[in-house]
């Protein structure tokens, strides 16, 4: 038997009203990829915070490399060789990629001053080891979320690592980036690093993990080699019941009636070059495409968050020119953004205030906010989306990542009477809640709401959409019927048109 890198025994953690960890045993061997599974709020991130020294447990013990330890700070754990990539990114948005990657290990020159040139060289070296092409000079907040996540991963490759912990790293990346991440994980595994891996995408667990531990309500519900459990058994252990059908039935007849949203030849910034699409009432329209193809930017322009440079947007047959979110909301639009932490949630405020933020008028009676009404609506949404929270007064910042996403859903599904734009709606959401969200999205559509859904998860796009637009490099590369769509057809459109344009550019270069 190989000795574990880290071994936790009977770990307990308690917050007022919740006990996210209840006598948890957990061990990671060197050279193994150990998946940590569980519903939103099961305690995964809390367990990870304990391992990384970010919080101290109320009970239990921990041994690391054979010695009993009790971390006083994250810094101490880091110095001992534990690197944690937390669920919410911990980057400095105003600093460069290089500065962020080498945040703990700024290279110095002969005078003891930080050397800019050495820093960029070292950062570039790490990024190329990871296999990504990101400028080391770019500022973090100029990068798409996926690139930010890759920078976060690059930070893990800087010093010596014995235990690498990744909390839902693939929530914001897809396709090629996931492959790069997995390649690097396998390399580190061969070097004897122990790896903890959290993800709500079960396919990934089967692809990469050796062993799995499943948490349910803060307790270990099962563990063992990945091969010993089937997908259904894992889901049953996580959710506590069997899931029969993931996607609700699609609409029978194609949606008719005039478009609720019609976007023609939209141009905005350098990411949106020429986009035309439409949504009819009662229809779920998917936007697929690679990260960086301009999908999010299109949504932002429609909602009025971002300015447009050309083209037209019509809403219910009328031009939609007063370009601000306030106006969009007033017209019955809702926008669930992809970056919940920075663009939408008030982390310091309770669930109820977060749910009601765009609709204070809806709970105002005779000039005063009706507290009871507000609380009831929040409770209803907590129930609708199975948010794991003891009460609507809980601060959203104290919820687990997936539950924060559900709060956002609770907010916008109420507000959007005409059109709901969803940008990566099930990011970080557990499988049980996903099924519930799909059902609610379909229900909204059946009530006549138009849905425009951006997603990098192809099964979700295919399973839910009535029509699919595939974007590539700021253009709509094609439109596919949802019922007959295949992953291959979508990928083909997303990639092929890139090739065509590139080869055209190459030809032009040759001519010149």
């Amino acid at each position: 038997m190989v000795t574990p890198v880290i071994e936790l025994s009977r770990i307990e953690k308690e917050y007022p009203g919740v006990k996210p960890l209840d006598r948890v045993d957990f061990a990671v061997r060197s050279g193994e990829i150990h998946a940590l599974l569980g519903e939103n709020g099961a305690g995964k991130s809390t367990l990870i915070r304990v391992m990384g020294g970010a919080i101290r447990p109320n009970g239990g013990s921990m041994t690391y490399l054979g010695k009993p330890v009790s971390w006083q700070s994250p810094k101490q754990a880091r110095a001992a060789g534990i690197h944690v990539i937390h669920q919410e990114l911990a980057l400095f948005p105003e600093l460069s990629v290089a500065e962020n990657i080498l945040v703990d290990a700024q290279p110095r020159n002969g005078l003891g001053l930080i050397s800019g040139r050495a820093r960029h060289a070292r950062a570039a070296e790490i990024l190329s080891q990871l296999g990504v092409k990101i400028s080391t000079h770019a500022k973090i907040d100029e990068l798409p979320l996926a690139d930010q996540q890759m920078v976060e991963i690059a930070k893990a490759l800087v010093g010596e690592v014995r235990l690498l912990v990744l909390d839902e790293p693939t929530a914001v990346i897809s396709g090629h980036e996931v492959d790069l991440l997995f390649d690097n994980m396998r390399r580190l595994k061969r070097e004897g690093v122990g790896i903890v891996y959290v993800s709500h995408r079960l396919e990934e667990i089967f692809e990469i993990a050796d062993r799995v531990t499943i948490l349910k309500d803060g307790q270990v519900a099962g563990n063992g080699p990945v091969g010993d459990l089937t997908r259904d058994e894992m889901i049953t252990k996580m959710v506590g019941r069997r899931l029969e059908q993931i996607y609700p039935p699609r609409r029978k007849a194609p949606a008719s009636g005039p478009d609720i949203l019609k976007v023609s030849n939209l141009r905005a910034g350098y990411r949106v070059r020429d986009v035309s699409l439409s949504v009819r009432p009662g229809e779920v329209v998917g936007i697929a495409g690679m990260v960086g193809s301009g999908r999010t930017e299109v949504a932002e322009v429609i909602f009025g968050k971002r300015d447009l440079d050309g083209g037209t947007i019509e809403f219910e047959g009328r031009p939609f020119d007063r370009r601000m979110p306030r106006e969009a909301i007033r017209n019955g639009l809702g926008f669930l953004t992809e970056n919940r932490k920075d663009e939408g949630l008030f982390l310091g405020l309770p669930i109820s205030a977060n749910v009601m933020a765009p609709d204070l008028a809806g709970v105002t009676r005779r000039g005063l906010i009706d507290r009871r009404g507000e609380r009831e609506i929040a409770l209803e949404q907590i129930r609708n989306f199975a948010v794991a929270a003891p009460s609507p007064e809980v601060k959203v910042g104290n919820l687990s990542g997936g539950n924060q996403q559900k709060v956002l859903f609770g907010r916008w599904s109420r507000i959007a009477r005409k059109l709901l734009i969803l940008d990566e709606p099930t990011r970080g959401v557990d499988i049980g809640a996903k099924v519930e969200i799909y059902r609610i999205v379909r229900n909204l559509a059946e009530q006549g709401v138009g849905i425009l859904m951006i997603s990098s998860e192809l099964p979700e796009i295919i399973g839910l959409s009535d029509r699919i637009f595939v974007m590539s490099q700021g253009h709509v590369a094609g439109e596919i019927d949802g019922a007959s769509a295949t992953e291959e057809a979508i990928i083909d459109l997303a990639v092929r048109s890139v090739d065509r344009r590139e080869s055209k550019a190459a030809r032009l270069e040759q001519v010149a």
Partner: protein
Amino acid sequence: MSAVVAEFRRNRLSLSYVIVVALLILLVVAGGFLSDRFLTWRNFGNLFQQLVVLGMVSLGQTFVVLLGGIDLAVGSLVSASTVFIAHFLEWRPDLLWLALPLALIAATTIGALNGLLTIVLRVHPLIVTLGMSSIIFGGTLMYNKEPGGSVPRGLADFSYAKLWGIPVTAIVLVAIFALAGLWLQRSRSGRSIYFVGGDREAARLNGLPVSRIVVMAYALSGLCAGLAAIFLTARTGVGDPRIGTALTLQSITPVVVGGTVLAGGRGGVLGTLLGVLLVTMLNNLLNFLNVSSYYQWVIQGLIIIIAVSIHATKRRQ
């Protein structure tokens, strides 16, 4: 009053309130031991009187801090307003009904201008209000270097009027605080201050009229400074271009002692009221003990640092 109680029950900071209340009790008990004149009706009457001006200005400051901003112009604005009121009333004592509203409108407008400038110029409120403070101070001195003017008897009497032994001005102050608490917690515009202070971009994406809310909060701070100036002029009987100078920084102490977070989005007016009580009572006691005002400054500095660090550790847990 029920609004304040409701806020107390609901506010997540109630633990911090408990700390401030405990400190207050400690102070009263210590005061009783150290001086036999401290625990008297008479002294409490005086104390409530002293508390009104700081209370008003701190209330305005609370709105702005909740929004994530800061208003460093309140002190100069109070001074300028007293000068305006006292000179106007010296000229036409019969136009009291006009002078006071005019003063309030002017102060509110200057406050709104502060808010507008932070938005239009996208400059940090610290800079905008610091600049504004300097402009107002200079402008007032150009017009008048020494204390001057006068107020009619009626206004002076009002500042000393008592109801069941409690100064009427203090009752008015508490009523204003209760209204402000109700407004913050239960009205759309009040609640919006928490949204904008919590996360400005999120507020925009939730369709809240961010600019309007920012301007409103600063305007309210101006209005509060104007009201404080009325109380102050009534009591001192003159307009003094320097009288408010210390108020700028003093107004921040009760806000943060009361648990409102400088980053915005968290806190409330009840904390500020308790903070005002604490600061005023402490100074009052130190006066009784003949502690020099130099020490009082030092002690106030200590209080602000200690209080904020207590709140911060509470939140980390």
